[in-house]
């Protein structure tokens, strides 16, 4: 019996992800602690304008905040976690999902399974919210949830469509496949091809067996 093989582009989930969870969690705690120290020092030393940098209400109504307001502004919850962002469709429904999808595709290209890539996207997004974005505005519950969730759903669609384009063999389709999913151009893109056994039923010499494998993806 002859078994033909067919090579297709795919993303596999073969990466051992647990050490990366632990590593990211340690990094998250470390950076968050450093930011806490810096922000607390800033809150104690700064004048009213620095304290009010994120509070339009205070800027417009009371340039010099009273002690109670000052205490509220320097509170843990105010500094680091807001319950919401303003309803900004451009950011909440466009920019955050797209950025989340690219993070998801990065981890997929690096060999993580779908749910593992989602989990890593969640951690990475949280890292960004608590370390980078915190210098402009507090991390919001909305962004912490929507970026990885909507990003992963969008990333799943982009992944499937880009793999379809890459497997057409058409140079123009391949170009758009790489354009949609630029992570496929990185050296990280492991498991580039998947060898799939096929049988040619038109040729009687090749008929007789089917190899079944189940893959975690």
């Amino acid at each position, binding site marked *: 019996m002859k078994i033909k093989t067919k090579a297709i582009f795919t993303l596999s989930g073969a990466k051992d992800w647990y050490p990366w969870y632990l590593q990211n969690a340690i990094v998250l705690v470390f950076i968050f602690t450093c930011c806490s120290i810096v922000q607390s020092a800033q809150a104690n030393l700064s004048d009213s304008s620095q304290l009010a940098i994120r509070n339009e209400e205070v800027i417009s109504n009371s340039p010099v905040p009273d002690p109670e307001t000052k205490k509220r502004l320097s509170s843990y919850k105010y500094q680091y976690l807001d319950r919401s962002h303003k309803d*900004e469709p451009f950011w909440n429904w466009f920019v955050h999902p797209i950025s989340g999808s690219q993070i998801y595709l990065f981890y997929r290209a690096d060999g993580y399974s*779908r749910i593992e890539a989602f989990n890593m996207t969640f951690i990475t997004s949280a890292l960004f919210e608590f370390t980078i974005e915190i210098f402009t505005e507090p991390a919001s519950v*909305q962004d912490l949830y*929507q970026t990885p969730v909507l990003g992963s759903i969008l990333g799943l669609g982009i992944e499937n469509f880009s793999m379809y384009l890459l497997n057409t063999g058409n140079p123009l389709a391949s170009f758009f496949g790489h354009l949609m999913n630029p992570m496929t151009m990185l050296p990280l893109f492991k498991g580039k091809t998947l060898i799939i056994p096929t049988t040619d039923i038109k040729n009687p010499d090749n008929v007789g067996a089917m190899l079944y494998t189940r893959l975690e993806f």
Partner: protein
Amino acid sequence: MKILVLIIFSIFYYSTNSYAFDREFFLSAGLGYSSASVKTRYLEQNDDGEIEDETESKAFGVTTRFGYRLAPFEFGFLSDIGYGKVEDLSLKLIDNSTVSGDGHYRFVAISPYIKYLLPLPTYYQWRSYVGGGPSWGLQTIVMDNVTSGSNFNAEKRISFENFGAGIFLGFEEDLPYKQMHPVFLEVGVTYMKSYKVYLTDASNFKEVKTLSSKDSHDLTGTFVFIRAGLVLF
């Protein structure tokens, strides 16, 4: 008595031997429909000259959830995003000026939840469950066609931040692997109460400015959700 024991035994036998998937993270998505009954002194419905303080609206949107299945429980977060229309609306703003017209509203609700798979026999691969949890929401009302009132226009909007709790009851497909994309269908009820209201200016779509805000406990709403979707991975 023997029959009773047999029934109880059967229930527990079926309930502990055929969970769709277990000890796994998952992400699911689907479509949602919600019917909201909102009562507030900021949102008044003008119906033939009669001003009421309660209005109803229907919205369509998407629902997502991710969680961890530890059968027979499931822990996670779920989100509802909806978009609906409102007609003949009179809106009393924070500064007590009133505007009227047609518009639309959108909302996002995020809820940490716990779900319990009921110890009942599956019926044609469908398993029932109940769940619930606290819920946080942000509702935004946009007036598309202002017929009367102050300088309020489509570029300005009013947003309510709400907090409440909800429960849901549903059915899900009992398939051996989550890679087979089990489907779910559920009905939920959530009660919310506002704690803050904003008046915002969205003339620059990249940067929405808060014109004014204040604490508010005046808006209460009951949302009935119908959600249908599947486990993506």
